[in-house]
């Protein structure tokens, strides 16, 4: 059992959790993920690690309630326990001294991006941060990002807050010398960022968490085509060259279980499950 030692609602339906997991904490590096299972009937949920506190022995994840399992996780409180927590999984992000690194985060993935930004800064890089969300009320980690980035830009899909969409990056990429781009967030965002950087030939790393079951290379559910080759995001990634990823295929594969996910959600809302 793994205890929730702290929980904080960041914005409605999005919460930050700190789990007590001393062994995992000691080995965690930015870019890696955990797989958790809430209870005996639960599915294995992959979540990118947003922080690891060695002194407290905790790892942090941020979860947005989109379906049955994430909603159930969101209903847990400080002091509650989950049944299983496995990690750290996946290869750590490559943190080196690149020069100026543009870090683009969307939605809840801004939190794990923050974990990477800290590492890039420590490694002596200048970091330009971009955070985005669908709308202002979904923006998370703005203050935290402002604290660690040399510059920070904000964008929303509806443009109510900051820039409208990511088109403004065109100018930025033209005017500034950027040595590396890191993108974490919804697949569409990763695709957009990769397309924007492609003409400039800037190495662009995207962090992919497709549908997974075991998360350790056994099932192949997370397969993604990168440069014409099939890779497993869980063990070959989660970081890949954004200019090589077949995003269309990935988006299709992410929808493979949509009808079942809807059914599970309805079942849960009606109080189903008696395990």
């Amino acid at each position: 059992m793994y205890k929730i030692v702290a929980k904080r609602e960041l914005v409605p339906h999005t919460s930050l959790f700190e789990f007590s997991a001393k062994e995992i904490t000691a080995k965690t590096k930015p870019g890696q993920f955990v797989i958790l299972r809430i209870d005996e009937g639960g599915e294995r949920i992959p979540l990118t690690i947003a922080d690891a506190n060695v002194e407290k022995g905790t790892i942090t994840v941020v979860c947005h309630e989109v379906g049955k399992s994430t909603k159930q996780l969101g209903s847990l409180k400080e002091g509650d326990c989950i049944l299983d927590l496995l990690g750290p999984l996946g290869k750590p992000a490559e943190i080196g001294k690149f020069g100026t690194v543009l870090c683009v985060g969307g939605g809840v993935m801004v939190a794990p991006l923050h974990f990477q930004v800290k590492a890039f800064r420590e490694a002596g890089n200048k970091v330009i941060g971009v955070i985005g969300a669908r709308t202002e009320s979904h923006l998370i980690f703005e203050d935290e990002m402002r604290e660690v980035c040399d510059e920070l830009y904000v964008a929303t899909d509806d443009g109510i807050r900051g820039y409208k969409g990511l088109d403004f990056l065109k100018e930025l990429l033209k005017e500034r010398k950027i040595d590396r781009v890191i993108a974490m967030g919804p697949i569409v965002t990763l695709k957009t960022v990769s397309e924007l950087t492609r003409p400039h030939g800037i190495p662009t790393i995207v962090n992919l968490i497709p549908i997974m079951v075991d998360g350790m290379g056994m099932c192949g559910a997370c397969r993604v085509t990168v440069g014409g080759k099939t890779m497993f995001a869980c063990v070959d990634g989660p970081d890949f060259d954004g200019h090589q990823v077949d995003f269309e295929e990935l988006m299709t594969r992410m929808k493979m279980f949509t009808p079942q996910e809807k059914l599970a959600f309805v079942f849960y809302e009606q109080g189903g499950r008696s395990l």
Partner: protein
Amino acid sequence: MSKPKPKIKKEVVPMPKQDPKERIRNFNEVALGYTEEQAVAEAERCLQCVKAPCVQGCPVEIDIPAFIQLIRERKFDEAIRKVKEGNSLPAICGRVCPQEAQCQANCTMGKVGDPISIGRLERFLADWERQRGYEILQHSNSTGKRVAIVGAGPAGLTAAADLAKLGYEAVIFEALHKPGGVLIYGIPEFRLPKKIVEEEAEYIEKLGVTIKTNAMIGKLYTIKELLEQFDAVFIGTGAGLPRFMRIPGENLCGIYSANEFLIRVNLMKAYDFPRFDTPVFVGEKVAVIGGGNTAMDSARCALRLGAKEVKIVYRRSRQEMPTRAEEVENAEEEGVVFEFLTNPRRFIGNDRGWVKAMECIRMRLGEPDASGRRRPIPIEDSEFTTDVDTVIMAIGRTPNPIIQQTTEGLQVTKWGTIVTDENGKTSIEGVYAGGDIVTGQATVISAMGAGKKAAKAIHQYLMKK
């Protein structure tokens, strides 16, 4: 004159099974097991050969004639004790061992009639004990030494049990959330109920073994770090990586690796969705690619999940199938169709990215290849297209690579298996390995045999140290 010998029955006592029409609608166990009377009747057929050729065919060297004799005498408690001297997981082995290729292949009775059904008798005894509660036998005094076991599959569980009996503190590190390895994620409920795997794992814990789940060695700790805390390490991480054909369209929706499909259905209990969260999709026309036990398991799961038509597509012919005859028979009884000498060329998707058809080519058999089986050769211009909405790739598994990638100095073959001597000793002192991680994909019982051998070797090593 000696009194006339009673005539020995040549025919095996049949195993009661669930009716195929019934069983394709449930995940309950297919084979129902012998009653006491049936077990004794089957045991009566044993000739009690002095040379015991059956034992030579057993990777864990169970004293088969002895336990069969005890069944005849209805001393079931002593009989199961005898089995457990060689095998800590009898309820599992009695169900999934390919006895027809091992102990039973050597049975003298097999030369004149049906061989003794040793597997069914083993299963009978194990179930007899399970119903009464496991007996924990006194074992050796503590040696004060600790051994880390990586992987709670058949090899790791066996090695841990044997080491515990020899007085070692054995700690198993398992990456999944449940122990059992392929027994829990791969083999379906109707062939090996998960309750049995759980009970046998609990039995091993009662022997004094600690099982630590959610612990992926290579990520959480390296082998080197384990060696700082333990006197020896056994690696039994298995062959769990799915193989794909690398043909066009393989990443379309509706195409699974057998591993993904079986993990969803068995480990995550997708057959009981939405009571269990993990879903699985099975369409109407299912093609399972491959001819091994995993292909049979996948096909039979797909039928139970509502598929109208399940086809096994295999590139060789029936004779070359690396499958237990019993499983092929069960699959056929249930309505699985076999398409031999056929191989997929590419998968064709619909406009939503789902597989809708499969282009295949017919094959013929040429000269034997490295495996000793005749090599399949494509027949030119024999391509044809068939409609499918679900495909399960069951063409084999490769070794799990994480330990090899994270352990400096560990000698590995070009196939990714770990190099050991015949007792499981690796290139690193104090580190042993066994099972599929050494041999490549093989059977549960051969992994158990390797676990047993390695436990012996570790014992010898630590006694000298």
